[in-house]
């Protein structure tokens, strides 16, 4: 398997663009999808966002300067796309509560999608009530085990900012659980 850097160089040299892009996509698509899915929880939404992300990657890859890792760069695009989606969704579904959303997810969920159980409902609800930035840091830090440096790069913030967001997220989740 070729390195990301080599594939990007070939892509930028217009040397069999589609093949290079396909290889990059296949290498990173799962991680990108999981990152989005943990944030939005519904497969159809995650699928739409993931497609938008990879189309953006195709459009912007020519100007990618390799100052950061390709994976971090794609995560950053995914993060911004997810943030846009969540903000739009918030405006449209202002009156829908988190519990309603989970009930809706279960009602419309795909057959392959495991249903939210008693076990996951508390965690999902707790994660969903977090502000978007804290939600991303919490997920990236715990589930992806990403270093704060990378999280800060994805979010376009400082390492201190990322750390603060993680600890605030933990506190909010704790408060939410105690309240329940």
């Amino acid at each position, binding site marked *: 398997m070729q390195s990301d850097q080599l594939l990007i160089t070939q892509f930028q040299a217009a040397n069999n663009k*589609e093949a290079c*892009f*396909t290889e990059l*996509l*296949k290498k990173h*698509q*799962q991680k990108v*999808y*999981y990152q989005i*899915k*943990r944030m939005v*929880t519904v*497969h159809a939404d995650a*699928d739409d966002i*993931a*497609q938008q992300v*990879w*189309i953006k990657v*195709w459009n912007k890859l020519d100007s990618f300067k390799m100052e950061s890792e390709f994976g971090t760069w794609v995560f950053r695009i995914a993060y911004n796309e997810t943030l846009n989606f969540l903000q739009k969704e918030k405006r449209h579904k202002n009156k829908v509560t988190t519990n309603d959303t989970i009930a809706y997810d279960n009602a419309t969920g*795909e*057959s*392959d*999608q*495991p249903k*939210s*159980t008693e*076990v*996951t409902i*508390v*965690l*999902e609800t707790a*994660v969903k009530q977090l502000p978007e930035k804290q939600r991303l840091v*919490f997920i990236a*830090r*715990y*589930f*992806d*085990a990403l*270093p*704060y440096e990378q999280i800060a790069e994805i979010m376009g913030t400082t390492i201190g900012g990322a750390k603060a967001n*993680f*600890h605030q997220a*933990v506190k909010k*989740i*704790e408060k939410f*659980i105690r309240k329940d």
Partner: protein
Amino acid sequence: MRPTPNNTELIEDSALVENLFSKEELSAFEQRAQTVPSGYFEKFTEQVLNTIRDNNKKAKVIKLLPFFRVAIAASILFIAATAYLFYNNRPVEKTMATISIQDVSNEEIEAYVYSNELIAEIDLQDELNKAGLYVEQPSSSLNTDSNKLNN
């Protein structure tokens, strides 16, 4: 599968989360996030490539050589300048509608004369005054006539 924490800070952060939720809860959450319809990722690649191909067909960018860019810009400028000059220097058609007096009814002529009588009188009076002439006003003659009738 969640990567194993490999540094002290990450282990400490993970412990904070694991104090709040059981491992069962956390792995169930992760499993739910990682579950996709069968064959999803294989189809996904093809779907993305098809969308990109469609977009490329719709918005085909034509790259121009610098000479052609200048030539096209000059042509647009030339057309715009010609259009501007042509528009501003076009001969103004000074055609007046000619209407035969026979085509106008007597009522219309009378209405026109009547409605313009005052202005005509004022203009006429001005001209007479300038020429140093005096003409008796029709209104005063009318008044005199009416006085006579009353008497």
